[in-house]
């Protein structure tokens, strides 16, 4: 499920960079904490809304608010809806 090239990964939008208040679809999870992210509810093709930024950011997945660090958000790749 990983990106095939570094360029592809670097040019994709991740949840850490995504704009607050917008809705996205999770395209891919890529990084060492995928398992942890999947367990709490981040899965490919799910919709996610970024609620706030900060040291830890907040987003809404399936009507549930989840707080996560930027390091984790960088492993969630999204596309704008």
């Amino acid at each position, binding site marked *: 499920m990983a990106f095939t090239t570094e360029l592809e990964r670097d040019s994709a939008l991740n949840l850490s960079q995504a704009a607050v208040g917008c809705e996205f679809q999770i395209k891919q999870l890529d990084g060492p904490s995928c398992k942890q992210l999947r367990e*709490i509810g981040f899965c490919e093709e799910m919709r996610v809304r970024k609620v706030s930024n900060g040291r830890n950011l907040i987003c809404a997945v399936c*009507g549930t608010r*989840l*707080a996560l*660090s930027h390091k984790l958000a960088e492993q969630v790749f999204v596309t704008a809806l």
Partner: protein
Amino acid sequence: MSTGENNALPKVALVGHPNVGKTTLFNQLTGERRKVGNYAGVTVEKVSATIFTPHGHQLELVDLPGCYSLTPESPDERVTRDVLLGDFAEEARPDLIINVVDAASLERHLPLTLQLIELGLPVLVALNQVDRAEAKGLRLNPQVLSDELGVPVVACQATSGKGVVQLKQALRFPLPPAAERRWKGSAALEHAIADLSKKLEALGMERPEVHALQLLGDTDYRVKVQPKLPREAQIAAREAAAACIKENLVPEDEIIKLRTQTIRRAITAAAHTMGNEGETLSDKIDRAALHPIGGWFFFAAIMFAIFWSIFRFAEIPMHWVELGVGYTKDWVGGLLPEGDLNSLLTDGIIEGVGAVVIFLPQILLLFLLIGLLEGSGYMSRATFLMDKVMAQVGLSGKSFLPLLSGYACAIPGVMATRSINSNKQRLLTILVLPWQSCTARLPVYAILIPLLIPSVLGQTTMMFFIYFLGTGTALGVAWLLSKRIGVGEAAPHFLLELPPYRLPDFSYVFRHVLDRGLAFLRKAGSLILGIVILLWALGTYPKAPSGEEQDQFNYSAMGRIGHFIEPVVKPLGWDARLGTATLASFAAREVFVSQVAVSFAVEEDEDDEDAFRAQIRTAMTDSRKPDGSPAYPPLTVFSVLIFYIYALQCLPTTAVVQRETKSWKWALAQLAGMSLFAYLAALIVYQGGSLLGF
């Protein structure tokens, strides 16, 4: 608690994510009759009850610790996995699983449902929070979902009791058969599962296919040491996974992909969204509660309210306890003739235990308030806010709740560290937690502070300083230790669910508070009772030939021990009495007060604890050294105070730390480290103060 008596009963386990309403449903199904115990070998709470189905069958219902998946991160989740896999020797495998699922958040909850079905056990899905899902514009068809998952699905709303009867009716006998796995993998994956199953069967393992799937689907389960799993099984699984990877198949990725596809298919068939979710009440509250600046005011106001109410409201029941102790002492004293037995019961047991039980109201109130904060959903927000502060010293936001509990009592605080995912951060939190000023220190402060400062405002400021010093030291030491332990590199990233705000489940909170209260009373009735009897005996025997109370202390075994250790405590400015009182309170710091009272032969005033403390203070103020100077000048009192702020002096805490860290090394290192720290701090205060001319 052993389940021995229920061995013959069919066992039903409640399984679901944390915060999904599992406990509320448990209470609805059982009518709140429950037994609380521990799973053998781990300090994970086991909650169970015996219930009757509408058809008259009796069964045991077990509320398993909440988990997001069967690939666990914390000790609680590991218990759930091991019990469900049947690997927990002391705990029978359930006969049926009730999987509690949040109807409003199916995509997040169904991955666990699929994993449970794959265990080969009958599963019944309780589709909870259907009212919330409908309010969000979600239309669900439980029958279609049931067809998709191959297991019965019952819609319910645990908070209002809706659907609970239907859920009970679904627990009919014979229990439904286990459903088949809902997905079929590629030929290579299916071959790997079948092949590994055969190898596990040859190793004599029960449920080989279930274990094979678990081993191929969870890297940690096959790589990290698992006490409940044979090493040979892990070796076989690693070989199987390596063979798959050679064929460009990562088994865990493939399994996740197949589960995700199955879930998407089920949701598409069974759920329809009728409209978009608008801004909820939780969102509106969060705008204030999580505001970068306003959120901190909100937080500070809540913390202030907690501490204010503890000191303001707990006074009333504390006075009742005081009166109760006084009357009991009078009554028992009147029943028996004067003598050693009378003295043991009244001066030893009732007075000693009473001096500890008096703090029960404060402990109960703090746990009640913490329980309400947790139940309302605000505690997760506090954890989120505090992560910024905690991260500066190497701790996690999840260390906040244990540290807050530490203000009441270190023991539940240490136990609450189980929610911290990183072992190193958890250890660090446990190591510094006893520096939080717990309520057991309050009686010591109540004696010492008025000796230093007469004004009420000054005393309040001093209390604030004590709390600040304790917490400040805990955070400072955490920062220093985090570098040594190497927390930085290993700390997992912050990830936390912020549940919607809601009314707390009051019955659950009250029950929890009651459990804590009973645990405290058990401690007072066992360890502290033992210590007070021992102290009474050491202070009473051998009897002074003169028969005078004033001579008794010096003549007694306790007085002799005090004189023996005097050279050690002299550099702190202490005399034999203070040395003995500190030595006596090494296992439980609360004992300091009764020991000082015994050594000054102060009789407790049964109606007035304040007068009793005032008498102790007068006795201390009036004490003179042989040269006529005061025996306890302010600098000495300050040195004692500093020692009590920093010393561990709590045997049950050391026992719990050993149990939680599974290491005597850490428990004893903490005891030795904190005692030495306290001694050095008191030494520096006294010697430094003396040099400066105080």
